[in-house]
């Protein structure tokens, strides 16, 4: 591109670098601080930001190992972090798989089949997903309380209940998959139909294998969405061994029991894998975000 560069340009580039460096420093400060705090001995010390003395005590506790304190007493892990992480992963994996299954079939119908009320249903769906679940928490609580009286394994304090509650949030995913299906030419499926495949077989053996990339994107999106979900899980799960990470983590920082160092180790331990997944999936997620943006 023919843009005139001069002396002022060089200064601008330098200024831009300086500005970005300052901003990155501010942005990364909390993330680096928490790593340093997790390696610093004690829960209260306000020592230097770069730890002078490395201690693995918080990491041991986060991994569920007790350790011998300096005064000889045995320090037990305050919370079952690994159990919470497992709960979170279990709930997120199962609900994401179900969400992918449910939204793929629905997206197929919207993209390929003709039926009554199609646009009405689509519009209602998009309208509904503008209302966050946090507004209906009272009702969700009451619904699961009622379900629990008839099927205790599906009521309050059960992971199955939480998974069931998450299955309502499929509108956005149906929208995404439908968009992808519409980019695949219909002719391939029509060939299969000419060869005598049923509708279900065309869907299962022709369209679905071609849609694997988008299914993976939706799985990752649903996984991240459910693993960080807080409001519904905080209402449905109350007992310590049942909690998910998102609900349990805040108990580290209560006024009366402030475990800053232990929290830091648990936060790095549990935050790192989720962040990695997000960064790996970043390309798809970003394209999904902007694509959704253009569509409005």
């Amino acid at each position, binding site marked *: 591109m023919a843009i005139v560069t001069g002396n002022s340009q060089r200064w601008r580039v330098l200024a831009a670098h300086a500005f970005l460096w300052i901003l990155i420093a501010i942005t990364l400060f909390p993330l680096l601080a928490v790593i340093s705090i997790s390696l610093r001995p004690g829960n209260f010390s306000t020592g230097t930001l770069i730890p002078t003395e490395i201690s693995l005590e918080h990491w041991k506790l986060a991994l569920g190992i007790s350790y011998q304190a300096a005064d000889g007493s045995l320090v037990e892990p305050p919370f079952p972090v690994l159990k919470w992480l497992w709960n979170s992963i279990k709930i997120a994996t199962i609900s994401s798989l179900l969400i992918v299954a*449910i939204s793929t079939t629905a997206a197929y119908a919207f993209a390929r089949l003709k039926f009554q009320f199609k646009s009405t249903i689509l519009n209602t769906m998009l309208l509904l997903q503008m209302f966050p679940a946090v507004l*209906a928490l009272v009702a969700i609580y009451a619904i699961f309380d009622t379900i629990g009286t008839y099927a205790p394994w599906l009521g309050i304090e059960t992971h199955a209940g939480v998974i069931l509650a998450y299955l309502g949030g499929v509108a956005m995913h149906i929208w995404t998959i439908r968009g992808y299906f519409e980019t695949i030419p219909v002719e391939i499926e029509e060939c299969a139909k000419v060869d005598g495949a049923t509708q279900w077989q065309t869907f299962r053996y022709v369209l679905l294998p071609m849609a694997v990339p988008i299914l993976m994107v939706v799985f990752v999106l649903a996984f*991240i969405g459910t693993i960080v979900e807080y409001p519904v899980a905080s209402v449905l799960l109350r007992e310590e061994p049942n909690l998910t990470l998102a609900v349990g983590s805040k108990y580290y920082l209560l006024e009366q029991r402030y475990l800053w160092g232990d929290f830091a180790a648990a936060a790095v331990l549990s935050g790192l894998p989720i962040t990695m997944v997000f960064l790996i999936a970043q390309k798809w997620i970003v394209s999904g975000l902007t694509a959704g*943006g253009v569509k409005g």
Partner: protein
Amino acid sequence: MSSLVIHHGLNKFLAKLRWPITIALAMACLYLVFNIYATGQVAWAMGVLLLLAVGFYVYLSKGALSYRYLFPGLAGMAVFVAFPMLYTAQIGFTNYSSAHLLSEDRVRTYLLEQTTPDEARTMDYTLHADGNEFRIVVTSRPATPAPTPTPAPTSASTSAASSPTIQYASPSLALLSAKPPNKTSMLPLDQASFALNPPLPLIEVLKHRNILMQLQLQLPNQTLLNYTGVSEFGPLNPVWKTSNNDSLVLIESGETYRPNRDTGNFENDKGAAIQPGFKVGVGFANYSRMITDPDFRGPFLSIFIWTVMFSGLTVLFTLALGMPLAVLLNWEALPYRTAYRTLLFLPYAVPAFISILVFKGLFNQNFGEINTILQSLFGIKPAWFADPTLAKIAILTVNVWLGYPYIMILCSGLIKAIPADLYEASSIAGASPLTNFFKITAPLIIKPLAPLLITVFAFNFNNFVVIALLTDGRPDYLNTKLPAGTTDILVSYTYRIAFQDSGQNFGLAAAISTVIFFMVAALSMANLKFAKINAENK
């Protein structure tokens, strides 16, 4: 293609089983509906029946082939998104709360099950070891007469004071076995044919307390005695009895308590109410409270204003930070742009519940790293979470940190779509970068950005997580009836009313939620309007 063949064979096999499985499923479903109906929840039973019927129709009828693909998704959305919204609106018109939790019938049943120990006929008991088993001996108290087959409690005090004590003994009971007895019949001790060991000391007796609490003793006259105290067994009398017109009579005083279906309590003539109350419709009471009750209206208004400020300022600040960043990162003269972008994207990649809690710790007044830095630089130690203004600043800081990468990415995508020749023309005209930004970039992206900014505003309007995890709404307003926080936004306030300290007032919380529903709907309408204008201009 071989899997297709196998699949075909499997299909044939399944086709044979189709009807038996369908019928079995239908029976199971009907059984479930019947169970719900049997507990008196007619509305729930009808709802479940409707849902199941639609499900069966969709999967059995040839006409509904397309809906087979749709049913699970639509049913999920109907049950867990649409229905909760309608149900919330309905709860908003009731007094549903921890004090009015059950239906009127369930409360009546509950009250009728309440019992009180019959003091006049209570007996002392002793426990006697008998090998590995035990015998219980109850002794009537000297001042009271022995129970008669048709006891009249009021006559107890008027009877002879010097009646002899009567003792009854149980057969040998296996209290230590895995399934201890829960009922046994007693015989008069003077007719007993066994020798009684000395009674166990109290400390031994207490070891069997949990088992004894489950035990009922039946006297020869059929009176049932229950464990009523550390050393007592006594008959239990019901507290309430039914009366006509659905009312209940308090047996002790003979007073009648009528169900008041406006307030949801059983009340006597003087208006004294019995707890627990029951769930009734209260019309617009929850809504009128928002407008007319001055104790409630004050904090409610402040919270509403803060909610709007919080979401508005978040949009403003994230835009002020995100848009220039997007411009910089699209500036081709700048090296290392990809690295910068990845680093600046990090706040969006770290799970919010973790970064919010990290900030909570960093902002801590005494142990937080932010105050460590501020103290060494300026010698100040602000109390971030004790002062309302500082708490609001902390919340906005955290929320801008969390939110600017999203705006950055959105703007970046929109800037890429601007034709490059516009900038070429402006550079020929000798325009400065600032002129470029204000005359080309900003005007061109603000229109497609507007609906997205409304979405961001609506999201933050209901950004419960940031408030709940960072401040929990604190510091609280003083002198309010319902606890209300200075940093509470409407949704977190609703959550507190429903699930925290203030008596779980679900009805009021649902009413506020309904109001928020309408606000969100208004925002969505504005959003759609902007999107439509954009679409027409294209």
